[in-house]
């Protein structure tokens, strides 16, 4: 029992960002701070935003953000303030910079490139969607195939359609 109480006392708050004791009195400011929390990483945690994290440093970061918001700073100013202190690592949404161009533009480039390739190939074959007409031999095979199967879904019935030697072996 004592151990339980000790363990519980040793833990910090489960309520994380929602902890009533941390909240700002102004509900509009509080909402802005909460929206910002989701953008910042709890720098010592495995991979959590400071909105979710119960770690001490997350609480500290939340307090910083709330103080900044209460002091009337803009979102961009708050981000800059945290990046100055903790580096870009603190941002869960990487900045749109030259260094991160690959990260932001590659998905778009892939989509455009692959889409363009598909379009180009479709254009090239677009004029000739019809396959060449069947040869006499193929016509004959088609005739035998359609003779014993009238439904599209029945061609795989247990009895093979008798098209070649392999089929007979399989039955």
């Amino acid at each position, binding site marked *: 029992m004592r151990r339980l109480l000790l363990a519980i006392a040793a833990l910090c708050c489960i309520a994380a960002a929602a902890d009533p*004791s941390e909240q700002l009195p102004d509900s509009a400011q509080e909402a802005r701070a909460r929206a910002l929390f989701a953008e910042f990483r709890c720098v010592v945690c495995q991979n959590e935003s400071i909105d979710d994290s119960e770690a001490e440093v997350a609480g500290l970061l939340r307090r910083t953000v709330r103080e900044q918001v209460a002091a009337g700073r803009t979102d961009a100013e708050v981000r800059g303030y945290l990046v100055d202190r903790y580096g870009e690592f603190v941002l869960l949404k990487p900045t749109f910079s030259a260094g991160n161009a690959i990260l932001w533009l590659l998905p778009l480039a892939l989509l455009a490139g692959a889409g363009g390739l598909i379009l180009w190939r479709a254009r090239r074959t677009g004029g000739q969607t019809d396959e060449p007409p069947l040869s006499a031999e*193929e016509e004959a095979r088609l005739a035998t195939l359609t003779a014993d199967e009238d439904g599209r879904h029945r061609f795989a019935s247990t009895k093979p359609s008798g098209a070649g030697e392999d089929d007979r072996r399989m039955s």
Partner: protein
Amino acid sequence: MTAELGAFALALSLALSLAQVGLSIAGRITGSAVLNRAGEGAALAAFLVASVAFAALLQGFLTSDFSIANVAANSHTAKPWLYKVAGTWGSHEGSLLLWCVWLTGFGAAAAMFGRGLPAGLKAVTVATQGILGTLFLAFAVFASNPFARLAQVPIEGRSLNPLLQDPALAFHPPLLYGGYVGFSLVFSFAIAALVEGRIDAAWARWVRPWTLLAWSLLTVGVTLGAFWAYYELGWGGWWFWDPVENASFMPWLAGAALLHSAIVTEKRGALGGWTVFLALLAFSFSMLGAFLVRSGVLTSVHAFAVDPERGVMLLVILAITAGAGFALFAWRAPSLAPGGVFAPISREGALVLNNLFLAVAAATVLLGTLYPLMLEAATGQTISVGPPYFNLTFTPLMAAALLILPAGPLLAWKRGDLKGALQRLSLAAGIAIFTALAVLAMNDWKKAFGALGVGLGVWLVCGALAEVVERIRLFRVPGGESWRRLKGLPRGAWGTTLGHLGLGLFVLGACVETGWKLETARVLGAGDRLTVGEYELTLDRAGVVEGPNYIAERGILFARKDGRVVCTVRPERRFFPAGRQTTTEVGLCFEGLSDLYVVFGERRATEAGQPGWVVRAFWNPWARLIFLGPMLMALGGLVSLSDRRLRLAAPPRRAEAKA
């Protein structure tokens, strides 16, 4: 003794896998049916013996044999039996053993159920599966032996991480691994097709059932994991774009793309090379996932079996197998005969678009997951790529894919009638647009994205239903005729409908939950209240309860709606003395499709100075759909799998007709 038997069985399984490789390759070269059969026999034996090894480890866990180092590190006598069983796959060594059992199992399945396969293709498939088995079993035997003994036997074990002691997570790894490893057989099939130079409708038809099975298992596995994160971590979220989650999502996306491209290859003989590429990619993503999760190169909230040194060996296995696979692809694919041609507006065209979006989405997830690692290696700069990035890149890609989805099944093969398809979807589109506008009208502009998401979900659900209506020609032919058509629909068609319906329900749930969830936290003393949405929670009392291997503080709260008690929630905060860890046990109140989600926190004095507890309550509207939707998708996969056409081992050969 059991442990030695297990260690022996594991080594024997490795030897049998080697024999499987040698015999099957020899059989392929000489064309000898006897050697091929021997190779298949070795595959079956390797699976049986690997199962014996697994049973031996299970026995060690069930009897709490702490002389086995792995059991001592991951079990405890006081643990309920289910979690003793789950402990078997709760560690690095145990989960690798489970991986090997699935891997040899799929090899045995190929040997057993592949009766109609051409001998050469089958021999190469069995041999490739044997190579994969050999690599992973060698890793298990030489670097990750789960049966190592301890010289000094401890009296008590160190127990399994309490976060993992949960029913959803007990079943999560076996299903997830079934999915991951299920793609190994698809990989082997792809290698065999490249070696044999044969990719046609028949090949696609053999690959599809295994893809369906693996993808369905993976879907259930990932969903269980998300559900676990939802109610065990106590944050009220279910997907965090965490590297480990992404690791399971990439093979899922590749598998989903493969499912669709294989249809085109089967029905129309087209996209053969692309289908093979996806088949190689799906298992490569699975192995990448296994590496990411275990190596600890990426920090994650749910990395449990981290071991950097041995993780590197997984990277080596990944490099060997994926490298060889893609090299073979680069060498052989250009010589493959192009398949049937089709117009851009056709079922094939729609499936190509589906594949374009799914593939780019998978690439985006891969990029976002690995980018911090690559940047750090290249420049030493550390950055984070978190949920905001994926919301801005992945979500629009998927939204575009979902927007075109309902039209796909209504287009004809080869050359479709887009106008006709859209006409038949006009009712569905009307309902979707009306819903989105209605949602927007009831809320303010801040919910515009939520309204769009809801509209998209409704579009998918109605689109899936429209497809059935179209197939049975409801209201266009007499009712009896429609009924007859409904009964006559192939299971494959039902699978498609269920899959797309499940996806629609998921989108609805995810958008409503994300856009409209509410949260309140307060310090409550006995008798105090808090309000979340339309519900009022009253803390009745709190007390200490004792579980089998933990002690907990439990709160009992009544939830009232309109003054009437609708349910009682009992959230807990559990302390596990064995590992000195604390977990939360969320109190859930199921209200239709929505959840009232209550987390019980630490003691703190109330404003009035009375003893109190921090209580955090969420109202998660339609959260149930987030988990039901994917389950429906997996069910769709299984229904499709039971289709007679796929169950038959081999279709009549139509290769000549396609060539």
